[in-house]
């Protein structure tokens, strides 16, 4: 049974860090001291790498395949999520276009930021996005993701999504109707097939810029810089 020693000097004194994420020394069963730094130990510390495209023909085939099976992370961040269920229901039936919902980020290739992002949700959205497998794409719905929308003067919602995540396609509307979201998917497919949907690589290339933007507004940054 591990025992915890508390308040060891020289520890991380970030006031926002949750207790389970703080650096601490654990006494092992045989009395040995184990230094634990959850943010370092539980996540990969290596800086992520961009994935280089393979040869042209293979890449073309892969892009076609990627475009035709868009698995969407079921994470509705704002009002827009009200139009996602109709999209998947009989009338619009997005499954026939290769769009399917997935429950976990590990299985998904698309994240729909469906409208405004409260700062608290932005943190979760970033974590979800970073846990998704490459290549990954972002669809932004509604005015809110473009320039703040309804909540342009709110103290708790971001104004421009492209400062925090690399966005592939924007769909206008407040909220966009399911039909408009479908055309958003069509546009995304086009973009993937043309090989322009390099959001994941872009994110990694400009990681420092994105992280700086994110850290500027997420004041209680208590997670590793890259969650994988």
């Amino acid at each position: 049974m591990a025992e915890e020693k508390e308040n060891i000097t020289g520890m991380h004194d970030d006031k926002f860090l949750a207790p389970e994420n703080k650096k601490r020394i654990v006494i092992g069963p045989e009395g040995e001291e184990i230094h634990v730094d959850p943010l370092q130990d539980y996540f990969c510390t290596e800086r992520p790498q961009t994935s280089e495209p393979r040869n042209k023909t293979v890449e073309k085939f892969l892009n076609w395949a990627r475009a035709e099976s868009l698995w969407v992370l079921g994470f509705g961040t704002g009002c827009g999520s009200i139009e996602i269920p109709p999209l998947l229901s009989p009338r619009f039936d997005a499954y026939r276009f290769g769009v399917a919902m997935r429950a976990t980020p590990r299985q998904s290739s698309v994240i729909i930021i469906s409208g405004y992002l409260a700062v608290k949700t932005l943190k979760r959205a970033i974590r979800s996005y970073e846990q998704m497998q490459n290549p990954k794409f972002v669809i932004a719905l509604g005015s809110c993701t473009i320039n703040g929308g309804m909540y342009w003067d709110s103290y708790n919602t971001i104004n421009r999504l492209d400062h925090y995540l690399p966005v592939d396609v924007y769909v206008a509307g407040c909220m966009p109707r399911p039909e408009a979201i479908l055309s958003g998917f069509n546009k995304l497919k086009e973009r993937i097939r043309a090989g322009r949907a390099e959001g994941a690589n872009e994110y990694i290339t400009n990681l420092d810029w994105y992280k700086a933007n994110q850290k500027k507004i997420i004041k209680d940054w208590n997670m590793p810089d890259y969650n994988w």
Partner: protein
Amino acid sequence: MKNKLNILNWKPDRSSFPDMGEDGKPVISLDSEKFIKVWQGPNHPGITGNMSLELTISGDEVVESKTHVGYLHRGFEKLFERRRYIQCFPTCIRMCVPEPDTNEYNLARGVEELDGIEVPEMANWLRMIVLEMARLQVLLRMVPGQAGTMGLGLGVQWGMYYRELILDRMEELTGARIYHMYILPGGVRGLLPDGFKQRLEENLVKIEGFLKDIDKLILHNAVFKKRAIGIGHIPKDWVDQYGIVGPVARAAGYQRDVRKDYPYLYYDQIDFDYNIEHDSDMFARFLVRRKDLETTLDILRQIMAKMPDKGEIRAETPNVLHWKIPKGETYVRCESSRGEYGFYMVADGSEFPRRINLRGPSYTHAIAVLEKLLVNANISDVSAIMLSLATCPPEIER
């Protein structure tokens, strides 16, 4: 139903695990390694909004739960302070995403009450139509959704289609699918289009057929009954103590319906009844909503029969660009599909509201009630209980 009683009386056997303290409550210490902490959310669990539950579980049973909200917080009440009264309307409807019309109506009514504006008769009937259509639309998601949270997705798919029919009518009448912006202070924004009543009636007939399907698919479904009866039982004395409203209170045998208790619009001219159940469990709440659906269809038909064909749609108001509301305060409420939905409004005599505070049903349902109710629940029932309480995070957070 014999079994049902047994289920009601059933208590988990805690004689051995987890450890019970001297006060009879389980001793919850994560270090004991008998517990696991599970976070549910903030992804949508089912068809409610973003909200997370911090669950401490022992085996597959919840021993402690905490609600965390704020993922959808937009600071509406702050935004209202710097918007003129008319500008509050596009903002306020976004406070509750599935059923925006109650927001519009409450705010409009508050403004009218504070400034003493009489709304034309026709406008009031049109408001009723929209409010009832909104209720219908939400219930068509929520009633089959109750089974959906238990894995029966077929009803949800069907319900979604019938909801679409109502949304089509909404679009026709109000000009939008979700955020209707139809009710403005002084009146509404348009008469019924030609042939609207007939098309709505056709839809209502289809929905009636759908109700029969729901009965077969869900109501008389052995699995659903097994999982719903006796689960999420709310003791009757909680209702006032926790401020429980709407279908949840009605399922506990209380006659609570704003439409009848504090009649607004022309609900006093409409013939309908409280839908009461007494078992106060998930199944009773499902039954209340299922009856509400029928009542709504009936009310819609009554409205269509009673409303005039033509009339003024808006009373004359001061220039909306600089509309000053005299100093005063009021609390207005209406019955949403989830229960009493109220706005507390304070005007200070200027062009901007001083304070508009929303009190939605979820404010207590999803925090005080849910946290208590989830204790001892099975982890697989968590999202079902959430939905049966009609959790809607945007209205908690605003």
